[in-house]
């Protein structure tokens, strides 16, 4: 042992810290009971008397072998246990208390152990001393080995979804082959034959046109469209219809929404601080346009991950690509988190989860804290990607104290627009600079004057406060440490009284300070108790205060030095926020009474200063007038986008042990998922985040997941069930493909078609598998009750948007024009961030549901009740629920009743008041089919018996309309309306 000691120390004698480490190592070896050093004796004594009992008492409960589950994989019941350490590494560095995680935890710095409360100070000191002495530990039992599950990437690659696409089209011969069968159908048929099932016959034309309309554009066909199609005898009637719908601009509205579900799109942040995404809608429109243009999907992927880094040929392209990165930006964030590094890592996590699930069907979140338990994704892969997003700028600046806000980027504008704005900005800056200098001059001059004429300022901290005022620092430009507002509540119950103690009796100009704003009250009663009694002045707190942007004068009043005086701000008879911040009294000189006896020299100086003031004031006025004029003719602001940027400091990321960023593990080079690499290590430069390389990797045709995931999403939306049913999870816990060859065929064909979404959709809807009837067949149902093998078409409930849009369309109210910003009037927050706020007030619109504002925490009930995608998470597949609240909404909401009324008016106008005609027209409008005989009888009966029909024609019409509206209402609430056959 001594020899070893010597050897080591000689070899490393140039480096003293290494020597220490080596010494420690040798001590460690010694302490295993071979021979005992003097210090070790002390150490052992300390261990036996203090440390061992403390370990038993405080630590063994969670960190010893006789527990079912050892916490943090750390054993403290053997020396080997703490030497090896747990998930965070060795628990003790002998001789170095400051580097020992155990002591850090006992001191509650970072990790907090034991969790139930800090140990007595003496115990912590004992540990410190013991570690100092070399942490001698005679417990030489072997540490039980936890065999950490090492992820075998090679083995992982054998999992079906990581396998390369099988691009060979298998030769499938189906004996009863028909020429009408497409390649897709052969795959389906092949599977069905194996269980001796036959596919259903083609659905009738009424069903087909309805199915196509809802699937391709999310809207119902008009009765006239239905008639045309039903009566079109041409061979290509169906494919003509498909092509028409694929060309409709409404296609992008419907399919764009599918993607927005995946992209967890919203117009506000939600979470803790529901800030408005004023520019989010540009991303929404980008998605809609991309689908309408049939943008190649690989390009769509690249743009959303790294659009800001891609080359461009025009400003339009530059803008489009920048906006695309909104994909990374629109997730919900805890903006008011005060620990900003934690927030940063949480944002990174959100982005990794989204990118993983959206493009690759991988659940990556698990690997933040430990190696993925099911999929071949080690923690190091997670942090390899975390390095990329941590080097990406998502957040920038604060919108309020402790509250972060996100990166905004200017979009390229038309040259004339840009020039106008530049010119404007320059003129404005010059003017503002000028004004600021002039103001400074004025302030300095006034200060000199004030030196001679006393000014008294009284802050709210000195005031007598009645009622519940809220202290705030949100709006800038207040006196003292804060200002008060009345929370717009308790009107008449609150007041702030500023006591006045002046030493010189005189007339004073009384000024009130407030932070202005549109939501302020415009008639705040300010009561001045002065030498001549009481005066009440009404103050408008909306405009900017005139004096130094701080104070507004409310008049001049006499005050006596020996008389109690006050200025009181109350919220009596006000609406809007009332602000109380400070008041100021500035002595006014009157002819009768000069302010103060000044010496001749002072008087001279005073007069000189005063003279100086006038021209400055005039100059300021002129400048301010100019600025006002300029602002009035300002060009439109340059467009901005919610867009990502590269971070100023690019770096790899440490592994955060257990996902805790303070708990730093080794650094990981920026890279992607090892199991799905398309080539060797990516080359990511030192000055780039690596998003470009990430995008290229995901959009690489050799990537095993990308094409499979997107064609599966398309299949799911058209067929009703994904080939992989868990559309966002292609991992171990996801479902296996029911038709793996078909999936690969579709994916390969998709890439051959230049990643065209529309071509893939066309291919699928032209197949017999899509066109089948959804009718029930007991024999098939017994074999395959879930219809996994596609012996019939799946019946599907309409998505929330289609339910709303159909009602609007059927009642002639739907506005098909595209929307612009859905949140034009909203401030930084969608509504005040107090729990007492009424919340966001929704504007009515009859545009398509896609254009409704997606305000997180404030989604429209008609959408959420029918399973609208929660914008807080990636949703490739919406839930389909049946809850009573849906029925209550359909039967009782004013919206549905209003649509019924409008539809009734429309039908009555079109077909007159014959009950049979009315029932027929209603069925054709709402169900795209005529009523059956029984339905006709029931419908007519309902219309007839509902009311006794009056004789007056006008009255009759009214009664008819009401009855018909109620009948339509029934059909809107029916199961057939919401189902797609």
């Amino acid at each position, binding site marked *: 042992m001594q020899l070893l000691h010597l050897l080591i120390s000689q070899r490393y004698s140039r480096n003293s810290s290494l020597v220490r480490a080596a010494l420690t190592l040798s001590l460690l070896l010694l302490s295993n009971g071979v021979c005992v050093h003097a210090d070790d004796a002390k150490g052992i004594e300390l261990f036996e008397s203090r440390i061992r009992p403390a370990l038993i008492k405080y630590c063994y409960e969670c960190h010893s072998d006789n527990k079912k589950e050892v916490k943090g994989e750390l054993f403290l019941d053997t020396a080997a246990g703490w030497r090896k350490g747990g998930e965070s590494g060795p628990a003790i560095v002998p001789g170095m208390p400051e580097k020992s995680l155990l002591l850090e935890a006992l001191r509650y710095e970072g990790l907090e152990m034991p969790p*139930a*409360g800090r140990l007595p100070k003496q115990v912590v000191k004992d540990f410190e001393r013991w570690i100092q002495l070399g942490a001698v530990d005679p417990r030489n039992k072997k540490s039980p080995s936890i065999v950490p599950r090492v992820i075998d990437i090679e083995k992982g690659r054998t999992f079906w979804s990581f396998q390369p696409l099988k691009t060979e089209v298998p030769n499938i011969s189906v004996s009863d082959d028909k020429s009408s069968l497409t390649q897709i159908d052969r795959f389906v048929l092949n599977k069905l034959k194996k269980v001796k099932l036959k596919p259903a016959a083609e659905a009738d034309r009424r069903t087909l046109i309805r199915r196509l309309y809802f699937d391709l554009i999310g809207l119902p066909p008009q009765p006239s469209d239905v008639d045309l199609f039903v009566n079109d005898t041409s061979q290509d009637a169906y494919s003509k219809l498909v092509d028409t719908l694929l060309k409709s601009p409404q296609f992008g509205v419907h399919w764009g929404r599918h993607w927005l579900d995946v992209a967890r799109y919203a117009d506000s942040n939600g*979470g*803790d601080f*529901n800030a408005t995404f004023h520019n989010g809608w540009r991303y929404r429109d980008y998605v809609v346009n991309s689908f309408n243009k049939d943008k190649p999907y690989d390009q769509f992927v690249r743009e959303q991950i790294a659009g800001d880094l891609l080359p461009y040929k025009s400003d339009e392209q530059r803008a489009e690509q920048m906006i695309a990165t909104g994909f990374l930006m629109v997730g919900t964030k*805890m903006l*008011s*988190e*005060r620990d900003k590094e934690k*927030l940063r890592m*949480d944002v990174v*996590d959100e982005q990794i*989860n989204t990118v993983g699930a959206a493009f690759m069907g991988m*659940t990556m*979140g*698990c690997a933040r*804290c430990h190696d993925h*338990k*099911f*999929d071949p994704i080690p923690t190091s892969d997670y942090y390899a990607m975390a390095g990329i997003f941590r080097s990406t700028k998502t957040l920038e600046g604060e919108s309020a104290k*402790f509250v972060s806000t996100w990166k905004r980027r200017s979009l390229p504008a038309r040259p004339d627009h840009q020039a106008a704005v530049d010119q404007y900005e320059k003129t404005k800056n010059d003017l503002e600079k000028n004004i600021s200098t002039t103001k400074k001059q004025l302030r300095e001059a006034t200060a000199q004057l004030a030196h001679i004429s006393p000014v008294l300022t009284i802050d709210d*901290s000195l005031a007598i*406060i009645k009622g*519940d*005022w809220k*202290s705030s620092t949100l709006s800038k430009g207040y006196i003292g440490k804060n200002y008060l507002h009345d929370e717009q509540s308790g009107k008449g119950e609150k007041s702030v009284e500023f006591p006045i103690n002046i030493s010189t009796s005189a007339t004073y100009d009384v000024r009130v300070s407030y932070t202005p704003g549109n939501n302020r009250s415009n008639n705040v009663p300010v009561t001045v108790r002065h030498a001549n009694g009481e005066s009440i002045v009404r103050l408008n707190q909306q405009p900017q205060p005139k004096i130094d942007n701080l104070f507004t004068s409310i008049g001049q009043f006499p005050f006596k030095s020996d008389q109690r005086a006050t200025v009181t701000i109350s919220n009596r008879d006000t609406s809007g926020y009332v602000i109380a911040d400070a008041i100021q009294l500035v002595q006014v000189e009157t002819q009768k009474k000069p302010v103060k006896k000044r010496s001749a020299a002072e008087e001279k100086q005073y007069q000189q200063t005063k003279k100086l003031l006038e021209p400055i004031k005039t100059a300021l006025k002129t400048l301010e007038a100019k600025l006002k004029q300029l602002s009035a003719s300002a060009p439109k602001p340059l467009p901005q986008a919610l867009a990502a940027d590269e971070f100023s400091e690019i770096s790899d990321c440490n592994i955060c042990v257990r996902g805790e960023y303070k708990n730093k593990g080794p650094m990981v080079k920026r890279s992607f998922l090892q199991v799905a690499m398309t080539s060797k290590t990516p080359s990511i430069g030192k000055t780039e985040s690596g998003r470009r390389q990430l995008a290229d990797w995901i959009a690489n045709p050799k990537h095993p997941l990308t094409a499979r995931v997107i064609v599966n999403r398309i299949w799911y939306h058209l067929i009703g069930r994904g080939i992989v049913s868990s559309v966002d*999870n292609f991992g171990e*816990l*996801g479902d296996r493909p029911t038709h793996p060859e078909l999936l690969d065929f579709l994916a390969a064909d998709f890439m051959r078609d230049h990643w065209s979404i529309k071509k893939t959709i066309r291919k699928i809807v032209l197949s017999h598998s899509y066109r089948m009837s959804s009718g*029930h067949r*007991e024999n098939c149902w017994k074999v395959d009750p879930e219809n996994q093998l596609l012996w019939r078409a799946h*019946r599907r409930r309409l998505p929330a948007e289609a339910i709303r849009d159909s009602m609007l369309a059927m009642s002639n109210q739907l506005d098909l024009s595209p929307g612009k910003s859905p949140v034009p009037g909203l401030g930084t927050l969608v509504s*005040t961030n*107090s*729990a007492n*706020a*009424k919340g966001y007030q929704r504007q009515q619109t009859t545009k398509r549901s896609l254009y409704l504002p997606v305000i997180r*925490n404030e989604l429209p009930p008609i959408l959420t009740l029918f399973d609208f995608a929660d914008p*807080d*998470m990636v949703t490739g597949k919406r*839930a389909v*629920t049946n809850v*009573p609240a*849906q*029925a209550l*909404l359909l*039967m*009782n*909401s*004013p919206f549905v*009743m209003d649509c019924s009324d409008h539809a009734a008016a429309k039908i009555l106008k079109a077909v007159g008041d014959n009950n049979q005609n009315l029932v027929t027209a209603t069925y054709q409008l709402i169900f795209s089919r005529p009523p059956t005989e029984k*339905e006709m009888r*029931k419908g007519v009966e309902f219309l007839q018996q*509902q009311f006794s029909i009056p004789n007056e024609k006008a009255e009759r019409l009214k009664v008819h309309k009401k009855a018909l509206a*109620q009948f339509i*209402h*029934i059909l809107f609430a029916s*199961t*057939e309306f919401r*189902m797609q056959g």
Partner: protein
Amino acid sequence: MSHYQQMNRRELLKLAACGLGGVSLSGLHHSESQAASQPLAPKSPHHLPKAKRVIFLFMHGGPSQVDLFDPKPMLTKHDGKQLPFEPAKNIDAVPKLLKSPWKFSQHGECGQWVSELLPHLSQHVDEMCVVRSMHSNGQSHGQAVCMMHTGSDNLVRPSVGAWVSYGLGTDNPALPSFVSLSPASGHGGPRNYGTAFLPAIHQATTIGRSGKLGNARIQYLGNQKITKYEQQKQLLLLQEINRDHLERLQRDEQVKGAIQSIELAFRMQSAAPEVLDLAQETKETQEMYGIGNKTTDNFARQCLLARRLSEAGVRYVEISTGNVWDQHSNLKKGHESNSLKTDQPIAALLTDLKNRGLLDDTLVVWGGEFGRTPIVQGTNGRDHNPQGFTIWLAGGGIKKGFAYGNTDDYGYYAIENRVHIHDLHATMLHLLGLDHTRLNYRYAGRDFRLTDVYGNVVHEIIA
């Protein structure tokens, strides 16, 4: 009645048979047999429960522990002096101690200390277990409120009530399993009563908003525009059309489920208004809660409504004060006013539950998202303090007249028998008969639970 007179006998009989629209509830048997397939059907807990339901009184904003339940003589003694150790990071307060402006005294047989702010509640200390060593994550409201309600201060997770509804279902199919009274729209808003990835049915039905009960209506429950009679006629035809639809399809669980949910909706429509109607209570009861008194009226209504909902079988009821406890300034005014508004109603709720024999199996939890600093913010306020604060529990299996845990000499950091929010959640689930490590839901490749990988049941506070 005139509408009913217009109906003929045949129609009335048909309505009765359908169990629709409040004419009859005879359809109940039918639905009970289907209960098994319904997500809200009662489920067996993991072990014998001590509590069957929860009422959570959420003191939004963060009530001050050192001014209500955790007296600190050292704080009084060193008022105005420097805090002798480091304050928490990222706060606005200065490290200068601020004593409580209120007197504390001991109450009940157990001798629990309560400040003079809560004269009514202090009479119930022998029913309560006060936990003085709570700690949580999140220095801001958003984080801490979500932590309290979902067990996560940053990620989107299901709320406690949703987990309980998912774990236990509900006894009364005509009412929701989880009701949140006047929840806040900010600080996480619906996330605090939402389901995240759990099935949507477990989300709370909300009544009122932001601490105000308003007209105490459930959205879309009832129709102002048409008469009951008209609606019943509509329903008759609607369900007939739906049944015909189902018959044509032969087999369709979706459509079948929709038909059932429509039926359930109208059972709710007739059952819920009665439960929501506080006028059914005696004058004495109303007065005991403080209804009619301007100060207490709003919160009293919420408390009484909570009792009625619990009694009717709602599994989890939350009442929120609105964000009123956030006294960064004017501690004295604010806490006084909040105490006046809530003290009597909460005391009455305990009395009422007890008198009806409901307290034994109803778990009542009182608390804010965090406490407040013993050091001063501005001149007369306190900042947020998740480092140490007090909550109390009563009823369903909780030790009576008991105090657990301690903060340091100034009431800043929880130091003895610390209880994290995860531990509170684990304990609440335990009392309801659920093992927090076994109440799982698989989503996005992993099994999630309310307490994530944390949480220990605090057996010491269980009777």
